[in-house]
């Protein structure tokens, strides 16, 4: 359906539509403290498991907390930390990829073997193991996700840099005496950054999903902090009586991930960039 829709709309329209949706999501996320009708962590047992009302537009959860407010604040955690993960992973990937690709030799060998070792352990498993050893918590999850994710960027960028190195203008710059640093900064980096942005968009969906998966397992965000995955974990016991508790956060995750994936895919199609 969505893809069929995408066929009718052309690629450009999808990009515009997704960007607008994304902008709306970002605005809502940033304005969450002003939009939220109630305090997201205030427990009010007298009001527990209420149906939607004027005071609580989406009803209340098992502790009488406003679901809408929790969803809005949860967006700040999910999106904020996902963005942090992406930026950090992209940053490390860029530096490592350029160094490995441009310098080659033993630098390349060592960096890529470290990457191989990290990838040898399936990524989410690595993160869970990392959290297992270092203790549950948002900080550890974020760190773990960054640690596995930079490798993919580094590999892609390394490949791009190696093919760029053969370009004549790079050779020309080197012959005319530019230092390695200058060549990298002026000629290599600008060429890879646009691809990075596209990969980053796709990776946002990945990060949001894994962040919430970890919180769902109880390893990430700890209660009472509102986060979508953690909310599903809390709501799962009420699946028979109050399915809304686990339905709403799931819908939020799915919609945001869909928007990011759709945008990322349309962008990579448009610019002819292959993922990973």
């Amino acid at each position, binding site marked *: *359906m*969505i*893809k*069929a829709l995408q*066929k009718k709309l052309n690629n450009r329209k999808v990009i515009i539509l997704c960007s607008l949706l994304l902008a709306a999501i970002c605005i809502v996320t940033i304005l969450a403290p002003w939009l939220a009708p109630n305090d997201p962590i205030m427990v009010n047992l007298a009001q527990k498991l209420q149906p939607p009302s004027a005071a609580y537009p989406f009803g209340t959860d098992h502790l009488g907390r406003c679901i809408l407010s929790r969803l809005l604040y949860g967006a700040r955690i999910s999106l904020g930390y996902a963005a942090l993960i992406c930026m950090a992973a992209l940053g490390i990937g860029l530096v490592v990829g350029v160094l490995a690709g441009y310098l080659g030799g033993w630098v390349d060998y060592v960096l890529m*073997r*470290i990457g*191989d*070792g*990290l990838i*040898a*352990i*399936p*990524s*989410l*498993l*690595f993160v*869970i*193991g*990392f*959290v*297992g*050893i*270092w*203790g*549950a918590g948002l900080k550890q999850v974020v760190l773990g996700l960054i640690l596995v994710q930079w490798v993919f960027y580094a590999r892609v960028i390394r490949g791009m840099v190696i093919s760029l190195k053969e370009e004549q203008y790079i050779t020309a710059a080197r012959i005319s005496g530019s230092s390695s640093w200058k060549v990298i900064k002026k000629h290599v980096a600008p060429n890879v950054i646009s691809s990075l942005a596209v990969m980053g968009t796709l990776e946002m*969906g990945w990060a949001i*999903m894994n962040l*919430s*998966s970890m919180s*769902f*397992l*109880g*390893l990430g965000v700890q209660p009472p902090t509102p986060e979508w*995955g953690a909310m*599903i974990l809390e709501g*799962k016991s009420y*699946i*028979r009586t109050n*399915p809304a508790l*686990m*339905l709403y*956060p*799931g819908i939020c*995750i*799915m919609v945001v*991930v*869909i928007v990011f*994936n*759709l945008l990322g895919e349309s962008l990579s199609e448009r610019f002819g960039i292959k993922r990973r």
Partner: protein
Amino acid sequence: MVTFIIKRIITIVPIYLIAILITFGMIHLSPVDPAEAYFTAAHVQATDQLLEQKRQELGLDQPFLLQYIDTVLNISQFDFGTSYVTNKPVWDEIATRMPATIQLALCSLLIAIIVSVPLGFLAGIKRNGVMDHASRFLSFIGASIPSFWLGYLLIFFFSVKLDLFPVEGTGTWKHLVLPSITLAFPLIALYTRLLRTSVMENLQETYVLFARTRGIREYSIMGKHVLRIAISPMITGLGMNLGHLLTGTIIVEAVFSWPGLGRFFIDAIFNRDVPVIQAYVLLAAGAFLLGNLIVDLIQLYIDPRISRKGRQLP
């Protein structure tokens, strides 16, 4: 071809050693003292003397490199130490829980293959047909839906509303249905997509044109040639996704209270049972590498072009 296989097997060893080193280094760098974790898990108030004794017993007073070599040697004999919680060998604990996880993983893999091969193939043959749209929609949703939420959705509709399948537990085949579908869904999405793209690419190849000019029936071109070659990337995907399958079981087992390795692992994390955590991560990494190896060998068998060219090592 034999050299290729041997070469391929040899490349695994250093990668696995690095994986062990990384896991090991992580444990070393972590603020958790295994000796302390041991006593916390055993609910014993530890004195300094006890801690010191335990550290010696665990070999923590040895230099890092020596400990690492020790660990590698132990692992090569399937000795993963003893669990802090149960005081039994970790390997035994894992072996008793492995069948449940393998059952779940194989069942969902089967579902994924049964659904995605025809779907991806038909979608690839007829671009923009009904099947194509269906497959694209499915693969998009599959990539965007969190699997734990999908699990609860399935429970909500099929267990709570329709009362067709049990909510959790094991025993009958009915218990297996919902967890397997949950675990299979993202795989279906991925494989369908891979196969679709690969079929489309293969249809552009000259061998298809040649077969057509020879007057071979379309049916036989598709079934005998295109499918056989186009399925190759999907098999690679299968190997690459063993990891996904493994982590998937952790989440699905948590959703459906499935008594497998995944839940054992999560419990170990909460108990700070360091040997179990280490063993699980290393076993999973080993299974992942081994899976990739097997997949490479299958490909060698299926696609004759690879063996003839003596494909480059990745």
